């Protein structure tokens, strides 16, 4: 019944091939220069490749929304989702048995990942976000950090700088995701790793459907209120095209119960996650809101009157190529057939005897 909104990456695949990839001009990072530095502006200059290629989201508005959210008296009230996903990213960092001297968080918000990591694992953390209020109100952490105000689409760092790049729930607002991933690959050192999380296509499907149904019944048509998301099978291609190796992509769902639809929408605003797509409708009609809340409660509501909201999260891991990394064996070099996999223990013991 409910329609999926066109995915930006699919549109990009058609159009993006015609233009050259943009490289960030390396500004360098003086290591002693700690603290807040203004490096890049959040607005892409008019006529830049990204504007011609793809421009779905109003980045200026997104910056305002995030700044507004971070300025609220109790921002931690709305941090639950980013806290959770930040800790899961941190788990994945700990899964890699290695220490990282220099790490970068792209779209860090208030530092949801760094607070779950320790200074033995990460030497120094560079935190990048487009909202200065988020950087100023960063959560406490033990790792020495450098906050950099910059757009995720324009990373102001030199090639081969970082051992680790992480990103949590921020890349879904990027206009040019392939280029953003390419830039992350660019600033990684060889054998460096990128660990990211972003919202997936099933995120908030209950809200999307309720709004569509209510708008159709009240106004005779609907417009998108929930932003378009990337499909999971595109993500692997995008990572591969950006140059990443040994990819891992998996999806996870987090379901949160809210007292009602109004509270859910209030929380989304508090997270700085209100829609900023250019084609959004400026105002949701009051009647339509009421109708959508009624439909939401009836179609998805729990027995106790609360309503669930689903957040689908894609986790991705990609490595920058290095000679030391394990590679697949050459074609035809196998000595055992797949058909004999069932007898693998016999084969192993035979091999041991012959040695």
């Amino acid at each position, binding site marked *: *019944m409910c329609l999926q909104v066109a995915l930006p990456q699919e549109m990009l695949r058609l159009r993006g091939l015609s233009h050259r990839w943009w490289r960030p001009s390396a500004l360098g990072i003086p290591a002693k220069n700690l603290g807040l530095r203004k490096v890049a502006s959040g607005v892409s200059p008019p006529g830049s490749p990204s504007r011609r290629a793809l421009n779905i989201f109003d980045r200026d508005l997104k910056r305002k929304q995030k700044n507004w959210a971070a300025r609220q008296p109790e921002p931690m009230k709305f941090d639950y989702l980013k806290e959770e996903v930040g800790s899961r990213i941190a788990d994945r960092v700990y899964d890699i048995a290695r220490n990282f001297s220099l790490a970068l968080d792209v779209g860090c918000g208030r530092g949801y990942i760094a607070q779950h990591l320790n200074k033995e694992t990460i030497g120094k953390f560079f935190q990048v976000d487009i909202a200065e209020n988020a950087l100023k109100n960063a959560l406490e952490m033990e790792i020495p950090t450098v906050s950099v105000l910059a757009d995720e689409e324009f990373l102001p760092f030199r090639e081969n700088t970082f051992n680790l790049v992480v990103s949590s729930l921020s890349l*879904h607002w990027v206009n040019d995701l392939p280029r953003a991933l390419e830039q992350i690959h660019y600033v990684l050192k060889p054998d460096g790793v990128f660990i990211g999380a972003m*919202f997936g296509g099933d*995120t*908030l499907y209950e*809200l999307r459907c309720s*709004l569509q*149904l*209510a708008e*159709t*019944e*009240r*106004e*005779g048509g609907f417009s998108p*209120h*929930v*932003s378009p998301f990337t499909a999971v099978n595109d993500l692997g291609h995008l990572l591969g095209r950006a140059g990443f190796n040994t990819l891992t992509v998996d999806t996870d769902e987090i379901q949160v119960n809210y*007292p*009602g639809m*109004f*509270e859910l*929408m*209030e929380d*989304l*605003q508090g997270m700085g*996650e*209100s*829609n*900023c*797509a250019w084609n*959004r*409708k*400026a*105002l*949701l009609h009051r*009647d339509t*809101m*009421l*109708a959508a*809340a*009624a*439909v*939401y*409660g*009836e*179609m998805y509501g729990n027995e106790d*009157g609360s309503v669930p909201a689903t*957040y689908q999260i894609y986790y991705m891991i990609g490595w920058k190529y290095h000679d030391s990394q394990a590679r697949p064996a050459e074609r035809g070099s196998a000595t055992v057939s797949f058909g004999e996999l069932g007898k693998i223990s016999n084969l192993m013991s035979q091999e041991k005897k012959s040695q």
Partner: protein
Amino acid sequence: IGVGARVRPPPRLPERLAVCRAEAAAYGRCVQASTAPGGRLMKDLCAQEFEALRSCFAAAGKKTPRGGL
């Protein structure tokens, strides 16, 4: 993610909706029924149910004093 630009419901909206639970459920059922096979959702299909919900909602806004129920 996100929803329309200006989402700032007056604080008492949830309470008012709770008062009109029966009307909301009736409207919701009407819309949901139209999504079943053979059903067709169109403008004002559930106008009657919505009118009941809206008038209840408006009345609840007037009756409840500041700070909810």
